[in-house]
């Protein structure tokens, strides 16, 4: 099937206005996402991945945030739309699976109603029809005796159950793009696997693309076709999953992989990355990873490496990439 | 509604009402009173001597709460001579006795209805009286409704029905009158009298005498013992300005201790406002730079009482007397002035004295006789003047009106010179009605009669 481009982000900048200056959360990001493609955006907290996600949906308060660049989605630049047009797209063409279902659902409304309201307000269905579809959706995402659960309040359900509700909301209008903002990080480990499985199942069934935002390379490896590594507001490397896992070209990606314990490799020791994420108020010149990069050289401080396609569909932003010895992972 | 045996008419004279006539025994101990014939109570039973005996004896019954009961204790025995004559025996000769029988609480009630009502009498007065209007309904704190008594023995009243509404706030009363909710109101807000006077559809009625206002002087307190100081106080206060500027003209400065229609009234030279003379008198008495006094005043009891007290204080300050004002609510005020001499914390009290029973005895005896120091009387001044005591005791006994007149005149002269009080003014009693209301009788003692009144058109 032809893999047309669903989402094309070019030089996206997202700065937060504060009394002490601008925080450059997303500092020039470019990447594409094809139809039905699942791409993970991996990065430590504070790398700007969530900011990116919410910027796509234009959910930032304009008075607090400065956004520039292009976000071509399904042929139209989302940043140029006015609020009404954006409102139509949200929920129907793009939807989000929230990070923490406990705070995402409205505590004073039954969960079923929070699903049904999508159909009532976005598709003008009658309350009865909306309720029926919502109950079918709840059953689809594996919620036992959905008719009764329809009227439960969020505080009466477990974290996992609430995330299933959130997923059913995300897929309700069969959107083209689902953004999953660390969907499992707020859940306990036993539930995480099943929720991921469910998410993949429904995304494939609905045929939408997915942007999986996570800080856990394991999740990314398991879920996505393509992986994009972000650090301090910049994209450092993008490539197909197998390609990037087998041959990480950027020192940061390599360091990330060293941190992940491998079952089939009997590593004795894991190598934590020294130092910490730079201050985004006044980021260091040149490559942002420079202070923590074991392979750094003086060129890295002068010129800011641009993201270039060094191998077939394998992009990296590091001037020293070719010098890294082949490492087979 | 309920009529007494005698009544003080508009001219101040005592005239028979339910009584026909009366004779007094030579020793002044026995009063024989003839009752009008053919008078019926509202419950239809005839007015008889028996009813008079019943009503007067009630006044002596300790279980019944009677304001000013001690005056009536002078009656020893009441005897029914025949259906229309009753004889009253007194314990001692008491010249003003007849004036006692003009008080509203000496009203004659029908024994038959009184027995039927029992102690409901404090709420329901059906059939009790003989007056021009009959009792219909009384809702405490809200309204009292009266109806015309068609078989009234006297001139038939023109008004069919009277509804008294209880509206405590003067401004609200005034607003209701102007809005037409009421035809008549008592005591409109004094500040608005000039405006009301100019208002075409409002008519103002003034009584030519009522409550006299004065400042009690505690004559046992240091500097106030000296008559010159007390006179200085009288010169220091500008009564005309207070009446004109604070009471808006609703009063007349007094020229004698007695209202004009009392026996023994004699117009005396008033203490003109003369601060220099006051200072001079103070210096003579040895207080060139004044002294400190405390003035007690009620709040809301008399017309602009607080404001007048403040004005008096500032007048006294102008002649060097420093005044500490204590404005007290009524119960505290009453409690703190009824103190024996040694416990009195006041030197001056702003006080008023109503007309009540129209006989000079009641104006002077309890207030100036040395036997009546508070708390067992109303001699707040702790005034002790043997000549006045002698005159008052004498006047109480002598029956001959001329002789009493001379005695009370003498008392007036002594009091006026001795100044146990700062003489001020007589508050006018004002009633405001819509211009359509006619023929209201304004008695000279804060009361009005509606028996002749009517509403035009």
């Amino acid at each position: 099937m032809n893999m047309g481009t669903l989402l094309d982000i070019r030089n996206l900048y997202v700065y937060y206005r504060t009394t002490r200056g601008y925080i450059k959360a997303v500092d020039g990001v470019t990447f594409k996402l094809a139809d039905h493609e699942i791409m993970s955006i991996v990065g430590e907290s504070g790398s700007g991945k969530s900011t990116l996600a919410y910027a796509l949906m234009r959910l930032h308060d304009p008075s607090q945030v400065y956004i520039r660049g292009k976000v071509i989605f399904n042929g139209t630049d989302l940043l140029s739309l006015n609020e009404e047009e954006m409102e139509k797209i949200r929920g129907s063409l793009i939807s989000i699976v929230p990070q923490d279902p406990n705070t995402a659902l409205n505590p004073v409304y039954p969960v079923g109603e929070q699903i049904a309201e999508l159909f009532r307000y976005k598709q003008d269905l009658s309350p009865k029809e909306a309720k029926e579809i919502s109950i079918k959706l709840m059953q689809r995402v594996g919620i036992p005796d959905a008719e009764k659960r329809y009227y439960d309040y969020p505080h009466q359900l477990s974290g996992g159950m609430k995330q299933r509700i959130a997923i059913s909301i995300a897929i309700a209008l069969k959107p083209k793009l689902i953004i999953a903002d660390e969907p499992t990080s707020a859940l306990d480990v036993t539930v995480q696997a099943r929720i991921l499985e469910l998410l993949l199942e429904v995304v494939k069934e609905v045929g939408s693309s997915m942007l999986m935002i996570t800080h856990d390379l394991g999740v990314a490896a398991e879920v996505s076709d393509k992986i994009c590594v972000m650090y301090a507001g910049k994209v450092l490397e993008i490539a197909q999953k197998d390609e990037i896992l087998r041959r990480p070209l950027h020192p940061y990606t390599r360091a990330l992989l060293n941190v992940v314990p491998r079952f089939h490799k009997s590593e004795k020791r894991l190598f934590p990355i020294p130092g910490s994420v730079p201050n985004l108020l006044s980021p260091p010149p040149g490559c942002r990873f420079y202070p923590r990069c074991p392979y750094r050289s003086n060129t890295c401080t002068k010129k800011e490496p641009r993201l270039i396609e060094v191998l077939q569909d394998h992009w990296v932003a590091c001037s020293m990439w070719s010098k890294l010895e082949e490492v087979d992972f | 509604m309920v009529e007494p045996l005698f009544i003080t008419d508009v001219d101040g004279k005592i005239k028979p009402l339910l009584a026909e006539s009366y004779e007094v025994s030579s020793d002044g101990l026995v009063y024989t009173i003839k009752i009008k014939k053919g008078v019926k109570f509202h419950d239809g039973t005839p007015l008889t001597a028996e009813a008079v005996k019943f009503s007067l004896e009630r006044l002596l019954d300790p279980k019944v709460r009677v304001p000013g009961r001690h005056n009536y204790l002078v009656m020893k025995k009441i005897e029914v001579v025949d259906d229309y004559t009753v004889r009253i025996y007194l314990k001692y000769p008491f010249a003003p006795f007849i004036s006692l029988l003009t008080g509203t609480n000496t009203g004659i009630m029908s024994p038959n209805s009184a027995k039927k009502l029992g102690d409901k009498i404090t709420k329901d007065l059906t059939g009790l009286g003989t007056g021009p209007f009959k009792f219909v309904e009384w809702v405490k704190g809200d309204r009292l409704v009266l109806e015309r008594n068609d078989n009234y023995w006297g001139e038939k009243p023109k008004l069919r029905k009277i509804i008294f509404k209880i509206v405590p706030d003067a401004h609200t009363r005034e607003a209701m009158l102007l809005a037409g909710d009421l035809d008549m109101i008592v005591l409109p807000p004094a500040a608005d009298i000039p405006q009301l006077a100019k208002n075409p559809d409002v008519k103002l009625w003034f009584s030519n005498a009522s409550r006299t206002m004065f400042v009690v002087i505690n004559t046992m307190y240091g500097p106030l013992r000296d008559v010159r100081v007390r006179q200085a106080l009288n010169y220091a206060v500008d009564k005309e300005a207070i009446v004109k500027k604070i009471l808006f003209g609703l009063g007349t400065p007094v020229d004698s201790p007695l209202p004009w229609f009392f026996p023994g009234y004699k117009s005396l030279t008033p203490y003109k406002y003369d601060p220099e003379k006051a200072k001079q008198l103070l210096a003579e008495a040895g207080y060139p730079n004044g002294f400190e006094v405390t003035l007690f005043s009620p709040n809301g009891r008399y017309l602009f009482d607080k404001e007048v007290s403040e004005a008096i204080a500032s007048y006294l300050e102008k002649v060097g007397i420093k005044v500490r004002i204590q404005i007290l609510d009524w119960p505290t005020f009453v409690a703190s002035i009824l103190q024996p001499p040694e416990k009195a914390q006041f030197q001056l009290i702003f006080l008023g004295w109503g007309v009540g029973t129209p006989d000079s005895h009641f104006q002077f005896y309890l207030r100036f006789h040395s036997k009546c120091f508070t708390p067992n009387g109303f001699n707040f001044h702790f005034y002790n003047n043997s000549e006045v005591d002698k005159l008052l005791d004498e006047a109480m006994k002598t029956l001959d009106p001329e002789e009493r007149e001379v005695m009370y005149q003498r008392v007036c002269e002594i009091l006026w010179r001795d100044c146990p009080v700062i003489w001020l003014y007589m508050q006018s009693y004002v009633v405001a009605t819509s211009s359509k209301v006619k023929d209201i009788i304004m008695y000279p003692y804060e009361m009005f009669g509606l028996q002749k009144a009517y509403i035009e058109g």
Partner: protein
Amino acid sequence: MALLRYLLKRLFGLFLVVFGIVTILFFILNLTPGDPARLLAGFEATEEDVETIRKALGLDRPLHERYLRYMLNLLRFDLGNSLRTGTPVIEEVLARLPNTILLAVSSMSLALVIGIPLGILAAVKNNSIIDYLVLIFSIIGNSIPIFWLGLMFIVLFSVKLHLLPAGGSGTPLHLILPSITIAIYLSSYIVRFTRASILEVLNQEFVRYAFSKGLPRNIVLYKHVLRNALIPVLTISGLQFGALLGGAPITETVFAWPGIGKYIVDSIFAKDYPAVQGSVFIFALAYALVNLITDLLYVIVDPRVKLEGGEESE
């Protein structure tokens, strides 16, 4: 079962509070100078008359004995008789209670009608001119001395324009000025409280999530946000309504509105102990009941609240 247990617990608390108030007031008032017996006997009465009345009223008994007798009568809702009018206090208070309730209801509903929309407007249009103006209104609202505001209304509407009565009760016209006066004061609190509450809810995660579902803006605002924001507003209004049941003593005095507030003020001035104690007792009862009802309403409006009486939100 939980409801019953909860009610019993609250009723006991209520009894304790009311008992406390009446006791404090009993001792406060009975220590005041001024002698009710003399007041009742009247100005010219003799000492014996005063004595007979003092005995009749039992004012000559020692204080603690009077206290016990008063408490026993209280259980039978016998609040004794007013010294001024002699009628049972319970009758006088109940005759005036409807007026106070009427005034409380009308001023509270007016305050809510003014306060809540303004509060929402200010919160939604945060940092705009409107937000600023609304804040100015609310600060002015609770800086104006109520009794002075009442007088100014009287000057304007009764004296100058002769539109509205200067005071008293009877027709609905009489109700207008007093309720507007109180409503302005109350709404200034409600506006600020609603605004703060909405601002707080707007910061919460589920609002952003609701927007991410692409729901129309005013659905998110008036359905999701408002429902959450109005819960604390309910509590505040409940408390204020309870306080209003004491009648706004000063406002009622200014407008001569025959409510409990004016009755309490007049009784205190006339040293009419039974009247003061009786009316405060009834008020305390009403105040506690209103609090209880507000808490119960709380359970209905906010599903997270259990009946242990404590708000147990996640």
